[in-house]
């Protein structure tokens, strides 16, 4: 174990630097939120900062910078399925676009879109 002591010392210095960057990024993201950015812009900046922070934690603290192949494979797999899971809202949205054209005149609460579209569809045919 002690054979790697010097390696570990180098690691420790990295951890401190990464901590400083993470703290700075936290301040940045809060500061940016006080600027009057448009919503898409604000989302883009906030997610960019969050992804950077997340990447730093994963790469340095969780040692993903230098990890075994099987862990990369496993993570790739869960990222793919994570993306599929995130596609759920997209899929819903696609239904929304179509149903809007059918019943846009009613303009009920958006939360009820799915349901109302369904009912309307049944009644309309």
């Amino acid at each position, binding site marked *: *174990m*002690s054979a*790697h*002591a010097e390696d*570990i*010392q180098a*690691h*420790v210095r990295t*951890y*401190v630097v*990464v*901590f400083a960057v*993470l*703290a700075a990024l*936290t*301040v940045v*993201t*809060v500061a940016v*939120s006080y600027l009057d950015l448009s*919503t898409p812009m*604000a*989302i883009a900046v*906030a*997610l960019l*900062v*969050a992804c950077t*922070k*997340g990447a730093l*934690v*994963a790469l340095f*603290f*969780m040692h993903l910078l230098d990890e*075994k*192949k*099987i*862990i990369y494979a*496993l*993570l790739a*797999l*869960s*990222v793919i*399925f*994570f993306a599929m*899971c*995130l596609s*759920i*809202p997209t899929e*819903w*949205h696609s239904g*929304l676009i179509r149903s809007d054209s059918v019943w846009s005149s009613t303009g009920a*609460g*958006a*939360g009820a*879109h*799915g349901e109302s579209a369904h009912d309307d569809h049944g009644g309309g045919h």
Partner: protein
Amino acid sequence: MEIPHVVEVHPETGLANAKLGLWLFLASEVMLFGALFSSYILLRVAAVEWPAGSTILNVPMATFNTLVLIASSVTVVMSWASLKMNDFAKYKVYMGITIACAFIFLIVKYFEYTAKFDHGLSPASSTFLAIYFTITGLHAIHILGGIVVNGYLLGPGARMWKTDPEQFTGRVEAAGLYWHFVDLVWIFLFPVLYLL
């Protein structure tokens, strides 16, 4: 009966059992929080209006909590590095700080929650508050789990350092990975719920 690869790594994967198991568990956790984030997006896209988090939630408190959690992430990795350098005393200090940070996080969270309840705000108030309480609540349960595991490794579990230091270091590494993941989730929760 000996279970193989408890300590020595498997020649094909290059990992010991606990570490592989922990990464599998984290993959599952990614899907759990992924499904909740996905629900958040769906609800938000569907909503007529969605409040900016900062108008309802306490951003300074959450910023403080973010820094606390990041600090604990550093200390937990330092505690593992201390074991790697054969410095058990330092390990105890760093692990102690990690657990203290976790408690600070929960105490701040407690004040945040009670402030909301005092204003009559609950999961029943709006979909935004509902998803806020659900995801942060689930995250808080994960913090509690981390306190239990890290507390065990600092307390009764630390005896293993004397009998089997390598397996003990492996356990600390695995617990650390879990703890980083909890930190990672918060790094995304914070802007999504409080700032956007």
